[in-house]
């Protein structure tokens, strides 16, 4: 089959809160739709509470979404039975944020990396070993680490082990949830280069979840920006970073300090005021309206639909952008 490897449509995830706090529902993800093409890296960017991790967990069905569909290679994984899901899971794998807590401290690296092979294949012991050894080599670690325990490794080495475990089955889709945010910059650079190299050589698709715009700009082909459980803008890397259209994307980019004092201090200091609204009682209309300098009555009355702003699929949800487009 051609086309997208992953199609997420109107994905919604609600969590019920404790009765003591009002018995409300946290609307973590509200109708999110996106696709990931074969061999494409899609960046999902957002701040704390934007719902980016929840989207990732729904995609691998670590969470059962409240509504919407997640179609992986033609099959809706929100509906497949357990047994079938298990088979599918060999084809999409996850890398987690914290390289310290995501590896079992009592397992050797060899066992950690071999585990998916043993769980999903009927390979012999020799084959399993060979695959684990190959995976470790692929992520740039010396064979000696196979016999080591996680605590003997540095943070960067551990994250490479996590990556080896995720890639040992040669999955079609990698979901990476903030894989470099716990690492120092020099180590982070190595992991980002490695991810880019591995993607090119192995050809997998990737959902790359991050709060760090510069990391998304380095690695991703396309980027989707999430705010309060909704995608507010999506576009190719070059378009989105060169010409962000949504006020939230613009202020997010403006708020991330550039590592260059001349340019950083010469920037206009447009700041978003306040803080994101509650996921329990999201504001009516556009989610950003309480903080947005451009908001008017319409932004409170009516949720904006996506406006396509380029021939390459750059889209954004903002009444102001839509008015501009239709006025032209």
């Amino acid at each position: 089959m051609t086309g997208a490897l992953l199609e997420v449509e109107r994905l919604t995830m609600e969590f019920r809160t404790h009765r003591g706090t009002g018995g409300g529902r946290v609307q973590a993800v509200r109708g999110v739709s996106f696709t990931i093409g074969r061999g494409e890296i899609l960046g999902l960017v957002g701040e704390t509470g934007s719902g980016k991790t929840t989207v990732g967990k729904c995609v691998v069905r670590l969470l059962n979404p409240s509504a919407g569909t997640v179609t992986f290679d033609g099959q809706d994984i929100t509906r497949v039975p357990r047994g079938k899901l298990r088979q599918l899971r060999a084809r999409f794998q996850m890398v987690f944020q914290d390289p310290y807590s995501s590896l079992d401290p009592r397992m050797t690296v060899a066992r950690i990396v071999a585990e998916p092979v043993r769980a999903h294949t009927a390979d012999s012991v020799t084959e399993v070993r060979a695959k684990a050894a190959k995976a470790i080599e692929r992520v740039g670690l010396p064979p000696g680490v196979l016999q080591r325990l996680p605590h003997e490794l540095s943070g960067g080495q551990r994250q490479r082990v996590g990556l080896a475990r995720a890639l040992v089955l040669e999955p079609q889709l990698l979901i990476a949830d903030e894989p470099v945010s716990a690492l120092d910059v020099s180590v982070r650079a190595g992991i980002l280069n490695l991810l880019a190299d591995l993607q090119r050589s192995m050809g997998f698709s990737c959902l790359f979840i991050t709060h760090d715009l510069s990391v998304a700009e380095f690695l991703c082909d396309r980027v989707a920006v999430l705010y309060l459980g909704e995608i507010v803008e999506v576009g190719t890397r070059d378009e989105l970073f060169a010409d962000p259209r949504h006020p939230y994307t613009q202020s997010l980019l403006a708020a991330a300090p550039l590592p260059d004092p001349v340019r950083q201090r010469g920037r206009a200091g447009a700041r978003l005021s306040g803080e994101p609204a509650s996921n329990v009682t999201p504001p009516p209309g556009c989610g950003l309206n309480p903080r947005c300098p451009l908001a008017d009555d319409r932004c409170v009355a009516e949720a904006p639909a996506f406006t396509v702003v380029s021939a390459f699929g750059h889209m954004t949800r903002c009444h102001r952008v839509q008015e501009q487009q239709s006025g032209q």
Partner: protein
Amino acid sequence: MNTDLGNPVPVPAEPGGSGRSSGVPVLSIRDLSVAYRTGAGDVRAVDKVTVDLHAGEVVGLVGESGSGKSTLAYGATRLLRAPAVITSGTVHYQGRRVRTPVDVLELSADQLVGMRWREIAIVFQSAMNALNPVLNIHDQLTDVIRAHLPVTRREATDKAAGLLDLVGIPRTRLRSYPHELSGGMRQRVMIAMALAGEPKLLVLDEPTTALDVTTQAQILDIVRDLRSRTGMAILLITHDLGVVADIADRIVVMYAGAKVEEADVYDLFRAPRHPYAAGLLGALPGSAVARREAGQLRLAEIPGMVPVLRAPLESCAFAPRCQRATDQCRVQPPLLTPCGPADDHAVACFHPEPVATVPA
């Protein structure tokens, strides 16, 4: 404004330049060394570091995990506990009430109590999680105020409200409990608390690390504002070079416990001289377009790991990871040496060629 902080030390605002004022530094750290005593011998965490902090100046102390940046600051403020011990150096403080410099390292426990909050205040890393969950903001602020200042309850409440004004939190939040505040607000409360005694030196240890960028921008605006309004010296410890580029006047780069480069922020970002400083800047993604134009599609990596320093150094600590390393670097540690046209730029390297950076 209800606080005496609105009574600033005059600081010349030099547009585009550093806010460094001439004269005696507020804090003068000289050859400070800190070691961790372990069963297998001392591990040197800070190695003969010298840093001056002047009024009205923000100094960015940068380095990666294990570089010794926090240990340096805690050593200089006498906050280290066993197994950390200060093995050499002096730390002279001269502030508002302390007119003749005193060596902080020589102070008695009682004298230190008088120094803390009133002269030197610290906002610790992940401080926003250090608020007492069962006390409201008013009680926590007034506790600190009354412990350090001779004021009545009424005055303490007024002062607490004034402190919240300084950090941009509505006074109605005095009645809030920590769980009712966002991370950014709690961090601002911690900064407000540090300002309670109107210190002359504020140490901020990774003040924005756990915060989102939009919140971080708000906190940095507050720090900028406080600097110009109060003329405090601010030591900002961070691993984030973007934060330093935004707010610092000077940068001190630490590696393996030592200061490897110190410069005006503009000089350092334009042309870092130490290969480690250059490596840190090269490891940042920056703009994808600029990268393509510069033909640098990959990020610069710094191979290897930070060494654990037990024996005295007989080489440059960075030599095993350094592409410029020569035989000289492997037999002799480089000393910090002035370099470049400005007299405030110094680097500890035998091959301190300036490196042109890719624009961010």
